[in-house]
């Protein structure tokens, strides 16, 4: 490549809000119902039905706006976006165009290159569409309106990002903020968080924006990183060949690591937006806004600082513990029970992270209780079980949330602290392993390790290794 190029990226992020009911009716938002069981006249577009706004949606949207330093539009409005598609029962989507609920925000992100600010253009509220199910055998399609009317917010960033790393950092930042607020679980794989990437390139040092494309169907952070890199390269190649970038929407295929055009600007639809006449303007009074502000929980950055200060945790540990709301909650609840922050941190940082990775789970999927983790820590601290046994028991706590105290009792896993009984076993190990004994006596310090291992084996792992060590030294 003859020239240096700069990549300019802006994101449109859709987040499904964690309300119990839909945005404009009382139907459940729960996943997994049989098709068309969470529907009513409103969310299936029956004639004569009218929308009624769910206040919780406004509260979540405003909470996200406050947490991302937005100005809250205290008199915001809904608009209709008109387009025909069978997953959209009214053939219009109720959204916000002219007066969105939040505007002009910003978040700080951190990458290997340092910190920077990404601007947020706006956040608006809207309804999700239903789902089409295509029956290949019957050559027909069915519509499931269970998702129709599930509340979404769309967070539109400014074109402030320059690399895939920044995109990921920005998304992580949003995800943590929203999870901490409890406004959504933000799972990319399950679609409760969806990101469309607007990307253009321009010669480095110039300020005029190049022609952008919009990339859809990005279902993981990895896919986003790959798509950004791929699209950047594709656009630079076009420019280098003297060909224009076409403004279009493209769809990413992560298996083929390739994107293809869905529709160009020429056949872009005219959505004929106009103010939704069935909904009066949403007035967020000073008092209501203050209530929302008061209810804002401690967010990630504050929590991170507090962990370092209050629990004296290293930056690295505090970052990992606060990297998911679930992990942080578990940490704090367990510490409240056992008062041993460093120990709790260790269990979460080492064993928990290992098991999560091994089982390809998200922290949100953890199902064990802080009580059981606290009990396990107590058992170790009291010397009731040793570290090896504790790890084994923890796997069961992690998997099945067992009560470790009861389990240790039941399986007879308590550490053998009876020195007389242990002394007999050690004597037998010494008698059975003359070679190792000789080695030790000849100055091979390491040989004692073998003898400790043999003793542990003989006690089925229950002995306290420190006691064995002491006994061995004494008897040799």
């Amino acid at each position, binding site marked *: 490549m003859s020239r240096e190029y700069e990549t300019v990226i802006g994101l449109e992020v859709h987040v499904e809000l964690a309300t119990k009911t839909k945005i404009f009716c009382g139907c459940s938002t729960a996943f997994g119902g049989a098709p068309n069981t969470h529907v009513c006249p409103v969310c299936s577009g029956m*004639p004569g039905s009218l929308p009624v706004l769910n206040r919780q949606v406004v509260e979540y949207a405003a909470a996200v706006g406050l947490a991302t330093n937005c100005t809250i539009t205290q008199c915001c409005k809904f608009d209709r976006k008109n387009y025909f598609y069978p997953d959209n029962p009214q*053939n219009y989507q109720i959204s916000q165009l002219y007066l969105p609920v939040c505007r002009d925000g910003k978040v700080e992100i951190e990458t290997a290159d340092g910190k920077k600010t990404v601007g947020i253009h706006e956040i608006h509220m809207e309804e999700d569409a239903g789902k089409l199910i295509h029956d290949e055998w019957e050559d027909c399609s069915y519509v499931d309106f269970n998702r129709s009317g599930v509340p979404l917010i769309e967070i539109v960033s400014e074109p402030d990002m320059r690399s895939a790393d920044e995109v990921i950092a920005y998304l992580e930042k949003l995800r943590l903020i929203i999870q901490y607020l409890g406004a959504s679980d933000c799972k990319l794989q399950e679609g409760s968080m969806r990101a469309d990437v607007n990307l253009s390139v321009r010669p480095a040092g110039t300020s005029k924006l190049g022609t952008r494309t919009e990339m859809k169907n990005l279902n993981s952070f990895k896919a986003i990183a790959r798509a950004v890199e791929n699209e950047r390269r594709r656009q630079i190649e076009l420019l280098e060949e003297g060909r224009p970038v076409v403004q279009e929407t493209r769809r990413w295929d992560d298996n083929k690591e390739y994107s293809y055009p869905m529709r160009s600007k020429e056949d872009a639809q005219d959505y004929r937006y106009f103010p939704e006449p069935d909904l009066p303007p949403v007035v967020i009074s000073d008092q209501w806004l203050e209530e929302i502000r008061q209810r804002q929980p401690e967010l990630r950055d504050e929590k991170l600082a507090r962990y370092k200060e209050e629990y004296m945790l290293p930056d690295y540990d505090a970052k990992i513990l606060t990297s998911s709301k679930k992990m942080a909650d578990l940490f704090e609840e367990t510490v409240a029970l056992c008062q041993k922050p460093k120990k709790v941190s260790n269990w979460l940082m080492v064993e928990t992270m290992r098991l999560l990775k091994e089982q390809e789970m998200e922290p949100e999927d953890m199902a064990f209780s802080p009580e059981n983790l606290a009990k396990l820590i107590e058992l170790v601290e009291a010397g009731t079980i040793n570290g090896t046994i504790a790890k084994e028991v923890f796997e069961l706590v992690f998997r099945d949330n067992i009560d470790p105290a009861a389990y240790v009792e039941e399986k007879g896993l308590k550490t053998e602290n009876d020195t007389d009984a242990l002394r007999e076993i050690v004597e037998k190990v010494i008698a059975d392993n003359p070679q190792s004994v000789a080695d030790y006596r000849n100055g091979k310090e390491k040989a004692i390790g073998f003898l400790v291992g043999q003793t542990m084996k003989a006690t089925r792992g229950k002995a306290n290794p420190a006691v064995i060590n002491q006994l061995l030294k004494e008897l040799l």
Partner: protein
Amino acid sequence: MDILQYTAAELGKKIKAGEVTVKEACEAVFARIEEKDKEFNCYITVDREGALARAAEVQKQIEAGTLTGPLAGVPVAVKDNMNTKGLRTTCASKILEDFVPSFSAEAVRNLEKAGAVIIGKTNMDEFAMGSTTETSYYGPTKNPCSPEHVPGGSSGGSAAAVAARECFYALGSDTGGSIRQPASFCGVVGMKPTYGTVSRYGLIAYGSSLDQIGPLCKDVTDCAIVLEAISSHDPKDSTSLDRTDTDFTSALVEDVQGMRIGIPRDYFGPGLDPEVREAVLAAVELLKKKGATVEEFELSLVEYAIPAYYVIACAEASSNLARFDGVKYGYRAKEFEGLHDMYKRTRAEGFGTETKRRIMLGSFVLSSGYYDAYYLKALRTKALIKQAFDKAFAKYDVIIGPAAPATAPKLGESLSDPIQMYLGDIYTVSVNLAGLPGITVPCGRDEKGLPIGMQIIGNCFEEKKLIRMAYTYECGRRKEGAEL
């Protein structure tokens, strides 16, 4: 006395007194429908079986003393754009020919709570788009006062059914005059309340920001009773108002002493039929004799009301009617290739000419590049019209004018020239744009014997002033021996 001669209030009393049974009232209506409706075509659907079953139930409740309201047991006709659970609701369109709603409109439910018996669903202009009830897929309704004339529209079936005594009262909807104008053409009383007074839940929307349900009745008393019954704050309609002043019958007082009437000169200018002008001014004269003060004034902006109304109503309609696509309910084209062809054929075949015209008009004014020039300008005009009314109501309690420039046209005269038909809405559409209440009361007939209506317009929430004025006028005319 023939049961059919009773007003709704009179019949309600007779039923309560045990002099007439609910079944007898219904049978009288069905006999009348049997006799007359082949000619007038007021009804799209008559629910004889449902009504008689309901009549028996209501009769029991009246006898048990659990239903005591003035409308208990009185048969009613409902415009076919209001959902009636289990009873076909077509909006007078082919596209909803077999549509049976799963829920009833809130206004209908309120009437049912009051003990009403629904006789059937009345004819209308397709999706309430029209001023003559000729755009109905189910054929035109004829004016019972003179069957070669139209009954007006879009609630023409409701107005004609009341005039023809094929029901005791009816519900209509008014987006740009659709209650007041047919009431005027058929010689009945029709009222459009303040926007938000009657829930729109279950009313199949035409122009959502303008639509309002209201009564069509034999006299002002019935009108006040029915409006009182159907008004309610409905959390299912976000534009519904929480009013505590809906005891409209308390305004049935024969006294207008000291009330100030404004006569907008702009409503009596060129284009107004001289006979209509004379009749309305004579009615105003009667009110003056009763002690009201009368003053002429300039309302202004009248000529902008029609373009603003058609832009806004059609814009909303183009979106509201998008759901009729052949996917979920209603008519679907028999033959098509692929999704978009299905949409196009279904809508081309399912909607009538006037409906398609308004959908196209509305889609056009919302298109990118035209939105500001048409839709936004219409919204600004709407705001200015509201201001003009605010100014007028600072000086006057009510404004009086005609409901339409002329009496009912002949069948077949209007549809060939839609612009001319739209211009006929000049005295009614402003009221919808400003969200005001308006009532039409009969005030005479022209030399062809066609009814003339006087329209009384009030400020928002001032239905009681309208009722008082209309009631006083009606009493005065009765005393003069006029046939109402």
